[in-house]
C-alpha cells in the first residue's frame, strides 16, 4: 500500500518536473561529464577522428603559462571587483535608499548599465578608450595631462585595468540595489536613537548601518567570487583576451582554444578545470557560512 503510494507520488512529481529535467539534464548536467570525457582526447570537434591521449591535455594545462596567467587574472578580477564595486555599491545604495527628494530618479538612471548587453557595453567602451578619438584621451588633453594619453586597450600595461573599470561600470548598479535593499530594511528607530544620543551621520553609518549589513557584504563578496568565473562577453568583445594575454581569463582562453583554434579536447580541459574550481569555491563559501551559523547557535 505504502509503496504504491510512494510510487504514485514519484510519478506525479516526475510529471511536474519532467519538462524542466529534460532541458536541464540534456543541456546542463549531462554535458559536465562529457566535457571531462573530451578532455582525454585530441580532437578538432568536426571530423570524427578523436584520438585518445589520456591525461596529456591535463599535463599540458598545468604546464601552460598562458593558462596560469588567465587564472591569476581571474583572481585579480575578483579582488578588484570586491575592492571597487562593494564600497561604491554601499555608498550609492545608502544614497538611493535615503528619503532625499529625487533619490528614486537617481536610482533609475544609475541602474541603466545593468540593462545593456556585454557586447554593447564592450563596444561603447572600445570607443571611449580609443587612442585617437576616444573620450579618455580627449579628457586628459583638456586637463593638461596629455603626456599620459595612450591606447588604453592596446597597451598590455593598461588593458586589464581599463577592462576591470568597465566591468565595475556594469556591475556597481547591481551591488547598489542589493545594498539599498539591505539598508532600507534597517529599522529607522535605530539610527534615530543614535541621533538622539548625539551621534553624527558618519558615526551612525559606521557604527550602525555597516555592522547591520555585514551579512549582505559577505553575500556580495561570494557573488563577486562565483560570478567572476563567468565573465566572458565583455572581455571577449573588448580585447579577445589580448594584447599578449594581458586580459586573458579562463573563460576567454577556454573559448579560444575550443572554437578559434579548434582544440576541443584542450578547451574541454580548461572548462573542466573551471568547473572543479567553481565547485571548490562554492563548497568553501558554504562551509564558511555554516561555521558562522554554528558559532551563533
Amino acid at each position, binding site marked *: 500500500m505504502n509503496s504504491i503510494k510512494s510510487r504514485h507520488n514519484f510519478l506525479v512529481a516526475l510529471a511536474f518536473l519532467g519538462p524542466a529535467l529534460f532541458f536541464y539534464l540534456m543541456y546542463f548536467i549531462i554535458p559536465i561529464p562529457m566535457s571531462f570525457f573530451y578532455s582525454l582526447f585530441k580532437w578538432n570537434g568536426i571530423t570524427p577522428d578523436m584520438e585518445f591521449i589520456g591525461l596529456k591535455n591535463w599535463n599540458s594545462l598545468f604546464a601552460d603559462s598562458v593558462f596560469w596567467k588567465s587564472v591569476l587574472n581571474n583572481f585579480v578580477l575578483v579582488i578588484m571587483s570586491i575592492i571597487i564595486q562593494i564600497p561604491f555599491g554601499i555608498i550609492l545604495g545608502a544614497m538611493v535608499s535615503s528619503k532625499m527628494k529625487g533619490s528614486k530618479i537617481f536610482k533609475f538612471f544609475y541602474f541603466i548599465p545593468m540593462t545593456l548587453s556585454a557586447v554593447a557595453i564592450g563596444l561603447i567602451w572600445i570607443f571611449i578608450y580609443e587612442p585617437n578619438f576616444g573620450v579618455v584621451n580627449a579628457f586628459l588633453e583638456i586637463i593638461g595631462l596629455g603626456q599620459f594619453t595612450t591606447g588604453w586597450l592596446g597597451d598590455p600595461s593598461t588593458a586589464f585595468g581599463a577592462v576591470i573599470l568597465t566591468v565595475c561600470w556594469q556591475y556597481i548598479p547591481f551591488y547598489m540595489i542589493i545594498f539599498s535593499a539591505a539598508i532600507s530594511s534597517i529599522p529607522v528607530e535605530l539610527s534615530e536613537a543614535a541621533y538622539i544620543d548625539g551621534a553624527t551621520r558618519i558615526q551612525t553609518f559606521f557604527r550602525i548601518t555597516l555592522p547591520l549589513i555585514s551579512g549582505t557584504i559577505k553575500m556580495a563578496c561570494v557573488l563577486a567570487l562565483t560570478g567572476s568565473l563567468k565573465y566572458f562577453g565583455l572581455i571577449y568583445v573588448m580585447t579577445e583576451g589580448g594584447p599578449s594575454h594581458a586580459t586573458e581569463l579562463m573563460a576567454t582562453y577556454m573559448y579560444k582554444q575550443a572554437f578559434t583554434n579548434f582544440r576541443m579536447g584542450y578547451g*574541454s580541459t580548461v*572548462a573542466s578545470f573551471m568547473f572543479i574550481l567553481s565547485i571548490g569555491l562554492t563548497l568553501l563559501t558554504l562551509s564558511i557560512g555554516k561555521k558562522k551559523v554554528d558559532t551563533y547557535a
Partner: protein
Amino acid sequence: MRKHNPLMIIGLIFGILWLFLTLYPLFFMVMNSFKDSMQFFMGSAWEIPTSVSWDNYVQVWNMNFPRYLLNTTIVVGVSLIILVLSGSMGAYALSRMKFKFKNLVFVLFIMGITIPIHITLVPVYTITRQIGLYDSLWGLIGPYVGFNLPITIFILKNFMEDIPVSLEEAAKIDGATRWSMFWKIIFPLSAPAVTAVTIYDMVILWNEFIFSLVLINSPKNRPLTLGLWDFQGQFTANIPAMLAALILSTLPLLLFYAVSGEKLIKGMTAGAVKG
C-alpha cells in the same frame, strides 16, 4: 537644521558625478551616431554634430538589422514561455511534494547557479550538431532554457514555499487534482515571482552572447548581440554607423526599462535580494 549638512552636499556632488559617469557613455554614443564619418574622424569626440543626420540609422536598418531583431524576439519569446512553464511546474513539485530523490534533484538545480556555463559549451556544440540544429535559431532554445532554469526554479520555489498550504488542502477536500491545484491556485498566486523571474530571464537572454557565438553561423540566423558583433567588423571605417547600430540594439530593453522601472530592477536582483 540638517539642511546644510556638509555631508549632504558632498553626497549630492558625488551623486551628480556618478550620474555623469553612467550617462556620458550613452550620451557620447547618441551624439556621435548623428555625425557623418567625415565629421567624426576630423573633429573631436566632444563636438556637437553640425547637422542631425539619420543616414547612419537608415544604413543600419537596411543591413539585416530587422532580421536580427526578429531572430532575438523569436528565440527569447519561445525560450521564456518554456522556461516559465517548465520552471514553475518544477518549482511546484520541489516546494510541495514528497518523493524519492527530491533533495538530489533540488541540489542538482541549485548547483547550476554557480557553475560557469563554459563547462557545457563543447558538449552543447556537439549535441546540437548531432541533432541537426546547428546554425538554427531553434538550436539556441535548449541551452537558453537549460542554463536559466536553476535561478528560475530557485526564485519560484522560494516564493511558493511561503504560500499557505491550507488553500490546497481545502481544494483537495473538494476533489481537486495536483494539476488543477497548481494551475488554479499556486500559479496565479505566484504572479509576483513569475513576473520577476520572467523579467530576469528576458534581460539575460536578450543580451546573451556566448551560445549564439558558438551555435550560429550564417548571418540570417544571428540574434542581435551577434549581429552587433558583426557590424563592428563591417563598420571599422564608419564608427558613427556602428554607434547607430548600438543604439538601435539597446533601445528595446531601454524602452522596456523606462516603462517597467522598479519592476525590472526587482526582477534583475530577485536572485540576490530576498523579499
